[in-house]
């Protein structure tokens, strides 16, 4: 089992590095799928099969699909990739990486200071998780339901295409802009 864990860990880390360095969004998302699958393997090796399944279905499935849909809707293709290439000069990486490395080293040092027990993995049954979820965590579960509901409503509301409602201060500017547009149209028609 340790072999499974270490292999999938290495894959997860490598895939994640690929995710954050890709220029093309679709490539990044595909590497993200790999990363999630690797993490699912880690879950499995930790004796959490239910969570591993959820990871595959929800993360690698639903969320990634959602992102891909958006990428497709916004038509982010090679143009985006070239722009990303422009933005991501090597020097851009230096500062954030240094800061992140400092953070990582500190976290590692702190983890090393903690108790260094060897883990004895006993798989936790789905039944146990479900009982715990519907018993002790019932209120948190309800709240998670609220959250999802709010997410759905919010996404529907924000994503809706609606008429432009401008603040009354902006209306005049808008009118001016529209007048200009009209003039342009007239000019083109005349020409």
């Amino acid at each position, binding site marked *: 089992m340790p072999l499974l864990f270490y292999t999938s860990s290495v894959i997860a880390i490598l895939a994640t590095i690929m995710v954050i360095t890709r220029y093309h969004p679709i490539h990044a998302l595909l590497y993200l799928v790999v990363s999630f699958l690797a993490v699912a393997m880690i879950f499995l090796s930790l004796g959490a099969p239910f969570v591993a399944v959820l990871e595959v279905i929800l993360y690698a499935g639903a969320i990634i699909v959602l992102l891909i849909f958006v990428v497709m809707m916004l038509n982010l293709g090679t143009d985006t990739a070239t722009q990303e290439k422009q933005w991501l000069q090597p020097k851009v990486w230096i500062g954030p990486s240094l800061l*992140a490395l400092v*953070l990582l080293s*500190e976290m590692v040092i*702190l983890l090393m200071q903690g108790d260094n027990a060897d883990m004895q993995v006993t798989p936790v049954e789905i039944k146990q998780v479900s009982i715990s979820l519907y018993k002790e965590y019932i209120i948190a579960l309800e709240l998670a339901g609220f959250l999802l509901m709010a997410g759905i409503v919010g996404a529907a509301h924000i994503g809706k295409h609606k008429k432009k409602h401008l603040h009354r201060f902006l209306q005049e500017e808008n009118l001016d802009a529209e007048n200009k547009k009209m003039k342009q149209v007239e000019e083109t028609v005349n020409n």
Partner: protein
Amino acid sequence: MHQYLFLIPALPLAGFLLLSLGGRHLSRKIIAWIGVGSVSAAAIFTIILGLQFLQAPPPEGSYTQTLWQWMSTENFSCAINLRVDALSLVFLFIITFVGALIHIYSSAFMRHDRDYARFFASMNLFVCAMLLLVLADNLVLMYLGWEGVGLCSYLLIGFWYETPANCHAANKAFYVTRIGDTAMAIGLFLLFKELGTLNIPEILQQAPQHFTAASPNITLIALLLLAGGMGKSAQLPLQTWLPDAMAGPSPVSALIHAATMVTAGVYLIARMHVVFQLSPVAMDVTAIVGALTLFIAGCSALVQTDIKRILAYSTISQIGYMFLALGVGAWSAAIFHFFTHAFFKALLFLAAGAIIESLHHEHDIFKMGGLRKKMPLVFWTFLAGAAALAALPLISAGFFSKDQILWYAWSAGNGSPMLWFVALAGAFITAFYTTRLMIVVFWGEMKTHIGEYPGRAMTIPLVILAILSVIAGFIEWPHNMVHLTLFSDLVQKVLPATMLQDDLPEEIVFQIIAAATALFGVYTGYVFYQGNKALIEEWKQSSALMQIRNFLFKGWAFDQLYDALFVRPFKFLTRINKSDLFDKLYNGIALVSRRLNQLFSISQNGSLRWYIVGVLIGIIFILTLQLML
């Protein structure tokens, strides 16, 4: 009748309330009726009351009316009590009667002013405050009237408030009298501490038993009260406000100088005569202050060119006579001089106002001249007033009262030849500058065109006052001439009789000297300004004499002295204090917050990544702390 006593101050108060609250909606005619009517009604009430008082004097010597309890604590109670005795009656009469004449005069004098209602409201309040002052039966109520008088003088001197100089004059009057008022308040506190009461009859009764002769406290109290009187009555060294108070309209000057305000100090000292009698030092100080003031102010009046300033200095000088009389213990003589002075000084100011208005607001006497033929009525009335001021023997009211003071200055208990001599010199100077004023204004050639002649509402008060200026003295004759002492008989019900020294020269000698001095002053004035005009021109060449003249013109440079002694050091201190350490501290706090705000607002630049870096640095900081500890 005396149950209607409260009406006397209440009527002007009602007039004030009506005019100040509704004055904007009333026509000028109604305003004049209210303003003049309230004071005139008070005058009529006073005269009826006075007649009743003279016919059937009340057994205890005074009418008292209790209106209501003002305040009451464990060991102090104070009621709104009105009390009339012979002394207050004299003042009441002058205030309401002369006040009413001045009001009638101003209804015409102020007819073009746009703040007609405000003027009459302030005048009515002035009269009301002064009436409260003289009617008060305790010193607290009197102090209320006293401060009310100060407030109204401020309002009226600064009546034409658009000119900064007028506001400055009003402020000056307020500040300078405030010095005296503060001293008086301290005096009242001391009096209360000693006697436990501020009721005037109780004080007068208890003071002789409570204070041993010449105890330091009674001297202190008397001197503090005297300081209050000096502030209001413009006596040395607090006299500087009165010449500047000429900034107000002429009727206001008449009211301040004749009927109200400046006589408050005389009233206070006369009212508290028992306290003063207990302290010989205070009496001497009063007499010396009076003598010095009358001389100094007289000298200043000699060289003034503004007609109203001449009259103002003459007022200071005449009040100086009253203080001198009070100081030597000639109580009734002082009040008698107040009585006659009120008539002729009101007359002089009103006549001067008429002249000034006719000559397009010209104040300089050397630009007047030749008015004798053009304005005969004003000339004759002014002459009556001037004669009284110069104390021409036998034909003027001023002679009888001033002669009495001169006589007592030597002969009374506290009198001395020195005081007499100063007073005599003052009398000479008074006659001199009065003649100068008369000749320069009424003789010679016309220098300014006459615009508008005074109407009847202005001339009638002048005539009445002129008649009174001549005959008012006849009610009190010197002992050795006619046995008629109506005035002192009345006043001596309240004030003690004047004690005389032993083995004095004959009184008639003094009378002849005083009369001769007055006549000699008139003659000297005539010589200088009519007979031999070249002499003055000759003197003007001499620089030393001109310097003396300028010194006198500035009123002995008291203003400059006070400016150097008090005003400038005070301003210096305020400038130092303006940026003191504490201000720096609080300004520093504000500055630091503003700088920090500028610093931190740089960090709020709208960049998402920048914020995340901030969060990250925070986490690193916390973890580092965790590692270190």
